[in-house]
């Protein structure tokens, strides 16, 4: 699996998000290398995350008649990020279709379909636009199985393009993961690279638990050379994507890149930094992460969402509870500021940068 620099999405007008892409800059990437070597299969080719997701949907639709894809603009247009491109043409409008514009309606009807044996995969166009469906997600999707003593399961996958760094206007760059991770009953997954995007989405669709599948918008145009189908580490497991001994950086989705870059920069200062891609936010993979933290004795979690009450709080709290005697410094959080997500010209100041991560690392007393 080799790695290419992403192309600027702006140059390819059919491949871009229709609301925000003009201002987006493609993030050139090294793939963090979580994919297992593919079995003998199609020849490797260069695959963006959107293409990998598209492929996963196509393969799930082909393998299982009960898989349905619907939502706003996912049919003819193929989604504003083109993740569902071509699926309506291939599988017909009884399998893939445009719904009326109402998110509570999309989730609510998906619940009914799942009760009747289907596996709906629905898209919330941007994560602030999942909020109208909040009641259906929190009061029903998360609770139906428990409510019925396991008699009714809801194998629904809710795809949510999330996070910022694409020059999106207001309400187009939220990181809503904390709302979902603090809701018992939901499984919350977020890939950081094309291979994981494919593999985790397929597993999510196949899961009998409802999954909130969060797709990092700024990584959509990241490319990897890959043979699909690919099977990466299983869902519900975090993965060490760079080994180190001095500190552990935890990241997910869009900040995995930041963590790797920070580790690289740290190396120049003589620090050996381990990086873990969490991949699944709920459940949290205590085993993998605690093992690393006990080894390094220091950790920081990086995310785009505001720090206060963000997902990083849970990570820091539980790692401290479980590993207190092993820690030589508090678990730090490097996150967005505690303000609403800013307008495009200010997002560079809001987002956690390599500099902010390095500053945090420096704030530790390395003599401890």
């Amino acid at each position, binding site marked *: 699996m080799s790695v290419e620099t992403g192309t600027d999405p702006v140059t390819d007008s059919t491949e871009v998000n229709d609301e925000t892409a003009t201002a987006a800059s493609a993030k050139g990437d090294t793939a963090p290398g979580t994919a297992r070597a593919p079995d003998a299969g199609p020849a490797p080719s260069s695959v963006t995350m959107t293409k990998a997701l598209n492929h996963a949907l196509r393969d799930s639709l082909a393998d299982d008649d009960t898989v*349905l894809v619907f939502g706003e603009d996912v049919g003819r247009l193929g989604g504003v990020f083109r993740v569902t491109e071509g699926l309506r043409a291939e599988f017909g409008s*009884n399998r893939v279709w445009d*719904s*009326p514009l*109402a998110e*509570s*309606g999309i*989730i*609510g*009807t*998906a*619940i*009914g*379909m*799942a*009760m*009747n*044996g*289907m596996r*709906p995969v629905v898209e919330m166009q941007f994560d602030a636009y999942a909020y*109208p469906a909040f*009641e*259906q997600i929190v*009061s*029903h999707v998360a*609770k*139906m*199985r*428990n*409510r*019925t*003593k*396991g*008699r*009714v*399961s809801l194998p629904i996958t809710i795809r949510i393009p999330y996070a910022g760094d694409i020059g999106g206007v207001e309400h187009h760059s939220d990181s809503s993961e904390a709302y979902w991770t603090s809701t*018992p*009953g939901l*499984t919350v997954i977020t890939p950081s690279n094309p291979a994981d995007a494919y593999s985790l989405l397929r597993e999510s669709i196949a*899961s*009998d*638990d409802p999954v909130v599948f969060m797709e990092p918008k700024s990584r959509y145009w990241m490319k990897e050379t890959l043979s699909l189908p690919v099977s990466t580490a299983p869902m*519900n497991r975090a993965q060490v994507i760079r080994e180190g001994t001095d500190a552990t950086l935890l990241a997910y989705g869009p900040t995995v890149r930041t963590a790797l870059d920070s580790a690289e920069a740290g190396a120049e200062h003589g620090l050996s930094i381990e990086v873990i891609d969490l991949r699944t936010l709920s*459940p*949290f993979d*205590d*085993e993998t992460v605690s093992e690393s933290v006990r080894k390094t004795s220091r950790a920081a979690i990086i995310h785009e969402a505001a720090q206060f009450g963000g997902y990083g709080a849970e990570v820091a709290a539980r790692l401290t509870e479980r590993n207190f005697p092993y820690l030589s410094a508090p678990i730090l959080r490097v996150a967005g500021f505690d303000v609403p997500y800013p307008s495009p010209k200010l997002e560079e100041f809001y987002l956690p940068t390599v500099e902010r991560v390095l500053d945090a690392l420096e704030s530790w007393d390395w003599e401890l």
Partner: protein
Amino acid sequence: MTIDVPTTGRSLPQLQPISFIGADGRLTDTPTEGLRIPSDATLTGLYRQMVLVRRFEAQVTHLTRQGRLATYPSAAGQEAAEVGATTALAPNDWLFPTYRDSAALLTRGVPVAEILAAFRGDWHCGFDPHEYHASPAATPLATQTLHATGFAMAAKLKGEDAATLTFLGDGASSEGDTHEAFNFASVWQTPTVFVLQNNQYAISTPLREQTNATMLADRAAGYGMPGLRVDGNDVAAVFAAVAAALARGRNGDGPTLIECLTYRMESHTNSDDPTKYRDAEEVEHWKQFDPIDRLERYLRQTGALDDSTVAEVAEAAETLAASVRDAMNQEAEVDPRELFAHVYATPRAALAEEQQVLEAELAAAGHA
């Protein structure tokens, strides 16, 4: 302008509620929009079931006052809508009830103890939805209307000969989800019947502060969906209208909205105080429209009902009441460990740890 629009059946419902049997027990001359009065045999069955559910409601309300149940919302006075609509369902159809619709669940064949488990506080939903083709009674208002729509959509996609029926209240009609359900059902032409029990109040809020429309059935036109206004205390009218709507749905002709005009004779739940918001005279006034009285009178006139059948039905009602008392006077077995058993299909290590915490607490407290 050249907008292509479906203009068929574009009309508002007739002002006078559809009714076969008047409050005086005689046939009315109200226009019935092509519906026909059910047979005497059917009406006798409906009579029987209404008597049973009325006795059921009275018994449960009584037990709730005694503290055997945590809370109970009775549908006393609304038996015609509850029983008439539910009886019209075929076995393969699905019912999507609310907290108010225990009588419907009883009519659907759900055992008493399983219906009441939620109100006694044993478990959120006490029955197996797949066994009775009835979803858990929804407490978040209007949410179930979308589930009914989605379920029917799946039935349609699978080519199943099944329709869905959902109850909702006049209050619930104001929620956004109701609108979204009406719209999705009509755009997708799902076999869904919306039975809106307009019982004049949402807890304390009277209909006139809930809507400024002439009638709630007027909403249907805005979705290109047929709407009917029915005398909700005439079980003959309710049954005929719902049966016809279900047949329409199964026939591929889409959803129907049926507004049943009725009245909640009891308080909202046992702990409500209706004297704060309505007069005793109003309740008195509605007694003359009683659904059981009028049907009994009518069926005695046609000869379908005589003293001995009435006595036999009354006896069956007492037997039911006794079984309700028996069921509610038994202590339900609740196992605290079940807290963790049904949340996810995929086991979680952290939940197993929490279960151990609880087990230790139980052991320390001397629990089994």
